[in-house]
Structures are given as structure tokens and as C-alpha cells.
């Protein structure tokens, strides 16, 4: 994997299939398919099933997206509906144009 096309690892914390959580997962999946094909990995954590993990990861609100790689780590809360904001937040400005 070249430095200009790094591999993205995400972790998405959701509250079951609640509305916002489902929207967040859907938006993330669309973004990855469009902008990061073949170079992403999404781990979904349901806080109802694994509340201790959310607690130890310091997650207090769901849905919350954590970009684990590439560094630096970023945390974004919400439905991930605003693509431009999201791209910036994930450090993908060059694709934004």
C-alpha cells in the first residue's frame, strides 16, 4: 500500500439499529465505497451489547465514528450526513474537490 493511498481503519459505535446509528453506518459505508474502495475496514460496535468496550474507549454518545488508521486518530459524533465536513475531518481534503 503506497503512502499516498493509505489503508483506513474505522470503528463505529452504534446503539443497536436505532435511526441515527443506522444512518451513520449507511453513510460511512457509502463514503468508503466511493472514496476508499478496497482500502478500508469498518468495525461496528453495538453499545447495548458491549457497553464495557464503549466505556473503556471513552465513548459516551452513539453513533460515534473513530478513525483508527491512518494516524492521527479522529473521533466524529453523529449521523455522518455531511460528506464534505466528514472528508475534511478524516483528512481527505484532496478528494473533496
Amino acid at each position, binding site marked *: 500500500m503506497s503512502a499516498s493511498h493509505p489503508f483506513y481503519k474505522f470503528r463505529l459505535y*452504534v*446503539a*443497536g*439499529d*436505532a*435511526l*441515527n*446509528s443506522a444512518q451513520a453506518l449507511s453513510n460511512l459505508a457509502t463514503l468508503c465505497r466511493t472514496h476508499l474502495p478496497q482500502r478500508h475496514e469498518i468495525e461496528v460496535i453495538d*453499545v*447495548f451489547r458491549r*457497553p*464495557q468496550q*464503549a*466505556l473503556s474507549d471513552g*465513548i*459516551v*454518545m*452513539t*453513533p460515534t465514528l473513530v478513525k483508527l488508521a491512518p494516524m492521527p486518530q479522529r473521533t466524529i*459524533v*453523529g*449521523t455522518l*450526513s455531511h460528506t464534505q465536513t466528514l472528508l475534511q475531518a478524516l483528512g481527505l481534503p484532496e478528494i473533496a474537490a
Partner: protein
Amino acid sequence: MKPARVDRQPGDEDMAALIAGLHAIGQKLEDLTAGEIDAVADQLGRPFVLRRSQEHGRQQEASRQAAILNALPAHIAVLDSQGVIVSVNDAWRRFADANALHGPRDGLGSDYLRVCDRAWGAHSDEAAQVATGIRAVLQEGLARFSIEYPCHSPTEQRWFLMTVTPLDEARAIGAVVMHLNISERKRSEEELRRFAAAMDATSDAIFLTDRASMRFVHVNDAACRLRELTREQLLALRPWQMLDIPREVLEHSYDRLIAGDADAPGAEVLETHHRRDDGSHRWVELRREAHRSGADWTIVTLVRDISARKQAEQRVSYLAYYDVLTGLANRNLFLDRVNQHLCAAASGGHRLALFLVDLERFKNINDSLGQSAGDALLRQVGHWLSSKAGDASLFARIGADHFAAVLPEVTAHGSVARLLEKTMAAFLEHPFRLNDAVFRIALKVGVALFPEDGSDAETLFKNAETALKKAKASGDRYLFYRQAMTATVAGQLTLENQLRLALEREEFVLHYQPKVTLDGDRLGSAEALIRWNDPRTGLVPPSRFIPVLEETGLIFEVGRWALQQAVADYRRWRLAGLSAVRIAVNVSPLQLRHRGFIAEIEQVIGHDAQAAEGLELEITESLIMEDVRHSIASLQAIRAMGLTVAIDDFGTGFSSLSYLSRLPVDALKIDQSFVSEMNSSPQGLALVSTIIGLAQALQLKVVAEGVETQEQARQLRQLRCDEMQGYLFSRPLACELFEARYLRHC
């Protein structure tokens, strides 16, 4: 003054404030997160779902469950704890609409228990059961109730399955009623049941085999019976195991059948043996057909037990080749076997003998003791013959009292005659037991030899038959075939026809030969002798036609005619005032044996006592001795009518003094052979002298036959023989001549 203490009880205001606070916090959170957050966690990490998401989740869950319920074909209703319908799915609604069951609002709110309780008519029983079931689930904690029931509409046969389950197993809060139309399933079950019943009703065994899995998918009762297995055992067997052949072989057969190969085993009917566990063999007919079933093929194998048919066929074939009574071969099989022996004889260069055997007196036994005794005798004879030879295949029964035998290899010249003599002597000595009495049976045998008398079985058989006929007509016990015999037999056939015509045309005549008295040549009596006045050839001697009359049975009619004619002549003489003498008429052995003979004589003489006195019957000695008991009875009956009886050809038979004393006879006729021997040897004279002495001792009249010389006449007079007959005095004369020469007016 101290201020009063007020207890800090949480009051309504506090509670309202708390709730308002919580709402405010919730609203604050919603606002803060712009509605994009579903849950927040407290310090312990426990997620707390925001109200908006909670409501959304509930709605989503409800609509999802409604969608699921509505997608189901079953009619579903939720009852509350009292049995009132609180919710129904689309299927329930549609059914209720179609059947107008529950009034308005799709039955919602109606008391389902009451509906059941009030049901009446054909289905009230089922409705009562349903109500009981629902109550058990609602009130008694029953985990599940189900019932299948028919509910036929005017247009179709319907069945329903109803199940009732509690909404909550722990609390009696209501129940789910599911109501499923199972008519299709019932119909296929019914069809399957009918199909199975039809298959089980047939006596043919049916095996349905799935080609892909090579397993039986269905077998009927007859199949189980055929294999003597239960249905489970049979279904567990694999087809090739059952047939005891390799799997590949059977698969190949099936595939050829599927491919429409006309030569495939089973496409045609196969007949095969099937051995049962108990070792008994069954014949089965096997028919296979391939039927497409979806993407796969089903092989239908029909197996029919055809043992009964096979047994019948074998029985028919047995009947075609065997004599049922004795179990010996019949004529067809015998000729086949002889032909085989002939092949061996021809290649081995040896001779072969074929015998035809006739049982003497068989007809007598059959007539007097009955057919079952006759049958028993035939069986005993068959058994005696085959056990004597040690090989039943050498014998056959070829007629009522005729047997045949083959000697496949004649070893030495003259051995056949020796074998015959020995066997016939042994046979004659053998006591046959019939109805608790012992009988000794004599045989007559005709023999034909290969290669002299024929090269095939048919010819040998025909020639042995000719020899047998000749033996029966003569005094010989057995005769070998000679070519001249055939000409005789052929001649006899035409002779028989001529004799029948002669009887019709009244060509038979009686000639009379006088018997003269001892004292001075006076006429004592006369013997009537039958002659055939053939218009083409003139008088035919009796020796030429009497045997044929006996063989063909014509003797009965001709014999009756002779009696009638003799009586008629006697009456005529008397009426004419002539010195009528007693007339002796010869009786053939066949006549005397015939049951109607006595009645026949009665009829001929009528009630004329004088006619009876004028008639004497001459019966040969050998005939009387063949069946002494029967003879005595017949002779007594004849004499009771006023007739006299003479023993003809006396001395040629085998009478002993003891028999002779018991016989109810009046006269003895010394056979002419003794009379002609009288002058040639002292023994000859002694014999005649003894016979005359015997007759006198028994107070019988004695007549000498064949007296030809004066010397014979002189000696007979010296011995005091009562009457003499012979050419010395007169040959037999035509009636008119006899009348003119011997009968005088009284």
C-alpha cells in the same frame, strides 16, 4: 418559639419537578446533538436511549412485526385474557370478510370465546373443543392447543389447523390464535392415502425406486408379502441388495430403461424364479417402467406371482405327456423316448424291443367290481411293471388296459422271449388285491423288434399292436411281429365292413350237424353252426370270420341272431309235426360275459317252455374256467329257464374234478383232438376212456366230437359214449337238407 419541623416527603410537586427535569435534560440533549445521537452513556457506561430514537425504534418494531404477521398465510388473531380479539392480521381480516364471520371492524373487539360457544350446526362440536382449548391456554396455563377440523364450504372441501398459544407463558395476558387452511395438504394426504390404498389393493408387488438415490421410495403390501419383510425392513433394503446383484449392474439396467432401450431388462416382461427363505420356489413375472419425476427418474417395478399359472402350465404339460392314473408316460412321451433309444440303438449297433401289453379280463373286473377297482388294478400293474424293471421311464400306459414297454438294448438272440416268459410267469403269480380279494391277471403281449420290424417308434408301435391283436385272437400268450400279420389286419378291416353288411343283408345262415345216439345211429340232437353265405365267394368257414366278430363286438348281434334262428327253426319243425331234436348253439366267451346275456335268452325263448327244452348252449371249457364263480351263477340262471348246458372242447381247458362237480352243466363234449388221438396211442384211448368215466360218474351226458372213422365209433360205443358227432355220420347241413334227411314226421 421553635419553628415547626416540616418533613421532606417527596410530594407530587417534587415528582412533577423531577419528571420535568428529566424531560428538560432529554430535550437539552436532543437539542445539543441536533437529533443525531441515539444514546448517551452514564458514568457506568450504561447507554441511555434518547426519546426520539426510542419512539422511532418502537414504531419500527411494530411495523416490522405487523409486516411479518400480514405476510403469513395463516389467519392470526390476538386475544386478551378474556378472549376478546384485540388484533388480527391481514389474512384473518380477509378470511373474515370472505366468510362474513365477525361483523364490522374485522372482528376486532368481539368475544371469540362467545362466538365459539354460540356456534351451532355441523361444526358446533369442533367449536366447543376450540373454546375449551382457548380457555385452557388463557386460564390454565396450557402451553399449546391445536386441532384440525374440516370446514367445508359449498364449493370446496376445506380443512383447518388451529393452534392457540399464550402471549406470555408466565402471565395470563392473552393468547395468539392461528388458523391455517390446510386443505391442500389434506388433499395431497388423501390422494397419497388413496394412491397407497390402491397400490396395496393390487396383488402385484410394486416397488418405486428413485434412480438418483437408488433407494426405494415406496413399496406396497404385496411387495412386503412377496419378500416376507415389514415395510420398514424393505424400505431399508437397497434395490440391488434385494436382487442380490452388483449395484452397477442394476444402475445400468435402469439407465437403459430410461434411455428407452427396447432390449433393456424389464422393458419386456421377465419370468424368473424367486426363492423364498423357506426354500420354496415362486415364479414371478417382472415388469419395469421408467417414469420422469421432476428432474429425476422413478423406476416402477411390478412383480407378479405367476406360480399358480406356471403350475397350471406344468400340469397341462404333465397331462400332455403322462398318464394321470398310473403316473407312467403316455403314448406321446413313450414314442419320444423310444425314438431316443432308437438313436442310441442305431449308433450302438444293437437291437431294441418294443412291447405292447394287454391285461386279460380287465373289462370283467372293471364291469363287475367297478371302475375304482379297475383303476386300482391299473395302478398296481403300473407299479409292478416299473418296480420289476427298476425304471418307470421304460413303460407307458397307452389305452384303457394297454401298457407299452421298451427294452432299449437286446443283448442276445432269444433273450427277449426268455425275458417275456419269465416276466409273464411272474406277473401271473403276482396276487393283485382288489376289494380285499386276490386276483391273478394274465397278459397278452405283442412284440416288435428294431431293426427288423421298423426303424422308427411309430412303425414299431404299430407292428407291436398288430402282433398283440394276433396274440389276443389266438391262444398264444405273446407273439412277435411278422410281416404277414399286417396283411391279415388290413384284410380284417375290410372283412369287418363286409360282416356288418352281411348281418344287415341276412347273409348268415345256420347249418346243422347231427349227433347220433350210441344205439344204432339214431338222431339224438344237433349242433347249430353259423355260416356266412357270401354272395361273391360262397360259404365262408367260421374260422375266418368268428375271430373278427369277437374283436369287433359284432359277435353280440350275430350271436343273438343265431339263438333266435335256432329257436325259430325248432318251433317251425314242431309246428310242422316233425320229430324236432334239441339244438345246441355255441356261445362265445364275450356273450357269456355280457351282463344282458341272460335277459337276451329269456327274450328269445319267451314263455315257451318247449322252446327252452329244445335249446342247449355249448360253452367252451376254458371260458367257464376263466371265472368259475361268475360262470356258475350264469349257468344256474340258464338252466333255471329249462335250457341245458354242454361243456364244449372238454379236455383242452384246465378243469379239475373238484370244479367239474360243482358246475351246473348237463353234458361234456370231448374235444376232437382226443378223439383223433384215440387210435394212435394207448394213452389217447385211456384219456378218452377217463373223460367218459368222469362224465358218467358225474351223471353228465357225454358227446364225442370229430368222429371220422368206424374204428373210433366202435371204440366209443364200447366206452358207452352217449352221442357221437362227426364227418363219419354227416357234415353240417343246410337247414332244408338236414330237415329232409333227419327229421321224420311223428
